[in-house]
């Protein structure tokens, strides 16, 4: 079953606006929550990540908000730019002897930033 649920499936934002993507998880053993960005024809690339001991992490225009009690986390993209148009995946993982630190991915959000 899908261990990480992501919404919305697609998002259109005007240039300069804020893009918000939400994710929820069930497994309380997860202790690492990254966001990946994927452009067409390319593999996903790490954008930003957070661990559950903090509630927020900011890197440039990208911020992760984390709510441990609600088992939810979100990505905020401030001052969205057309170059941010891509598919964004949230993920979660925890140490597992059988799967290493394999990431459990959401289904992705296709973001389009209009000029």
């Amino acid at each position, binding site marked *: 079953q899908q261990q990480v649920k992501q919404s919305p499936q697609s998002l259109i934002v005007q240039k300069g606006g804020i893009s918000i993507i939400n994710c929820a998880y069930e497994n309380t053993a997860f202790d690492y929550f*990254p966001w990946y960005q994927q452009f067409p024809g390319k*593999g*996903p690339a*790490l954008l930003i990540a957070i661990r559950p001991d903090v509630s927020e992490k900011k890197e440039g225009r990208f911020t992760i908000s984390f709510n441990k009690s609600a088992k939810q986390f979100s990505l905020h993209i401030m001052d969205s730019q057309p170059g941010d148009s891509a598919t964004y995946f949230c993920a979660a993982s925890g140490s597992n002897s059988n*799967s290493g630190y394999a*990431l459990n991915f*959401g289904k992705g959000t296709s973001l389009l930033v209009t000029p």
Partner: protein
Amino acid sequence: GAGVSQSPSNKVTEKGKDVELRCDPISGHTALYWYRQSLGQGLEFLIYFQGNSAPDKSGLPSDRFSAERTGGSVSTLTIQRTQQEDSAVYLCASSSDPSYNSPLHFGNGTRLTVT
């Protein structure tokens, strides 16, 4: 430095044929992961290698799928008697070790089309 390299980048094959997909991880990375990305879906975890060992192969979709890793480096994913439902992008990722301190670096994938 060089990233994760996957070959071929595209593969078209006829139903029933066998295919072999190759992954060259980042030099020195001991952990290697295979994922499958189907159209409109998230990334489905297939198998994890620590060194040359895969502790758990249950994530492989069927017994037509197999994977190996040699010399702690190159990995191959083999699909026997391909079916149309095998059409997808197969992604490989590596990390220096299986921990949250070592993010996964993805290759650009092999796009497999079974006709």
